[in-house]
């Protein structure tokens, strides 16, 4: 059993984008604030801060979750992946990020980090998604610039690319 007094700080250690990181959190510190202020991982954006807009979506143990609806102490010992981990260090954009760029799937970019995390989780599970499924997945996000059309196109294109790649890999074997 772990017990933390209301105003005590607890050392929270998690695996952020593959690297072990630690910082201090009080019981009421949100994961979103912990990532930004304690670990300096400001790629995770904070919009509504009460579970509506989806901007702060990260992947906890691989699963898309809102960082504003999770306490930092709940993420202790878990794997957290954020937008910073999508492309390698100074490396090229991931296929998903490149498709967003090609299809103008972002304008101001504020919502994009969260959307990319949801899409990354989604594409890992759904190899051949329909447009309706993509739109349902995007219902957890608000984007006031794009009208979502470019985002839907980008996600469907990446799904198709990955299917082709897998097919080619099978053909090579």
């Amino acid at each position, binding site marked *: *059993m772990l017990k933390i*007094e209301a105003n005590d700080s607890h050392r929270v250690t998690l695996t952020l984008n593959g690297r072990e990181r630690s910082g201090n959190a009080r*019981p009421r510190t949100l994961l979103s604030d912990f990532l930004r202020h304690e670990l300096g991982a400001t790629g995770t954006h904070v919009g509504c801060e009460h579970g509506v807009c989806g901007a702060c979506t990260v992947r906890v143990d691989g699963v898309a979750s*809102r960082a*504003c609806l999770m306490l930092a102490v709940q993420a202790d010992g878990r794997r957290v992946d954020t937008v910073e981990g999508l492309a390698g260090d100074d490396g090229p954009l991931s296929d998903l990020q490149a498709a967003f760029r090609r299809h103008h799937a972002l304008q101001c970019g504020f919502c994009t980090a969260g959307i990319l995390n949801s899409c990354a989780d989604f594409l890992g599970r759904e190899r051949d998604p329909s447009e309706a499924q993509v739109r349902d997945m995007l219902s957890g996000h608000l984007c006031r610039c794009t009208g979502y059309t470019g985002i839907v196109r980008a996600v469907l294109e990446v799904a198709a690319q990955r299917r082709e790649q897998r097919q080619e890999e099978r053909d090579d074997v």
Partner: protein
Amino acid sequence: MYAFEFHRASDIDDALKQLGADDEAQLIAGGQTLLQSLRQRLAMPSTLVDLGGLTELAGIERDGDALNIGAMTRHADVAGAAAVHDAIPALAVLAGGIGDAQVRNMGTLGGSIANNDPAADYPAGLVGLGATVVTTEREIAADDFFTGMFETALGEHELILGVRFPVPRRAGYVKFPQPASRYVLVSVMVAETDEGVRVAVSGAGPCVFRVPEMERALAADFRPEALDGIRVDPGGLNEDLHATPEYRAHLVGVIARRAVAAALS
């Protein structure tokens, strides 16, 4: 957010001990409603007892004529489980329509029913299917579990272990969502079971309710047309900026017919 102590429960006994030691302590499961309430200072628990580590409370198991689902089972897991699709596909539809993907990834069955939001999906699911809530102290029929708006029969120091759903002959769940939030405006679970037909409605009233007149009509003739002409009294139904009681009463009829059609498809 007000300050609170945090306990991560190591097992069920530990969670009960923490709950018993402090009258203002509150359990946190998936946190998708509770953390919003805390953010808006609508709740002020002295202590949060986190059930996140209690993996023994998560799981889905077919047991003869029943499907047992643990309290900490996430909506996404219910929506995706082959055992649920095989036994009660309407329940997979229900879980797959809750909130959005991020909410379904975190929110739990136990958390949802303990909260008993009038606009939640699961209350209609449990009552419509004639489920039983299993707690650390007893078994409670769904009909007796949901007692009022955000009220349940749970005692102060009682913890939900899981829910037992009898497998129906056929069932259908249809939801008319409030389009922005995807909370239930009106939803209906219709089930034909060995004990008879059940029709349960979420979203329309302050608490889930059954519609006996529809149940009798469907017992005689399990087709959408059997519900033609049955009117639901708007008296006592919810009124808010999304819908009037009259509109909700009308929707109950429309959605119930669609739920019967879904059960037959």
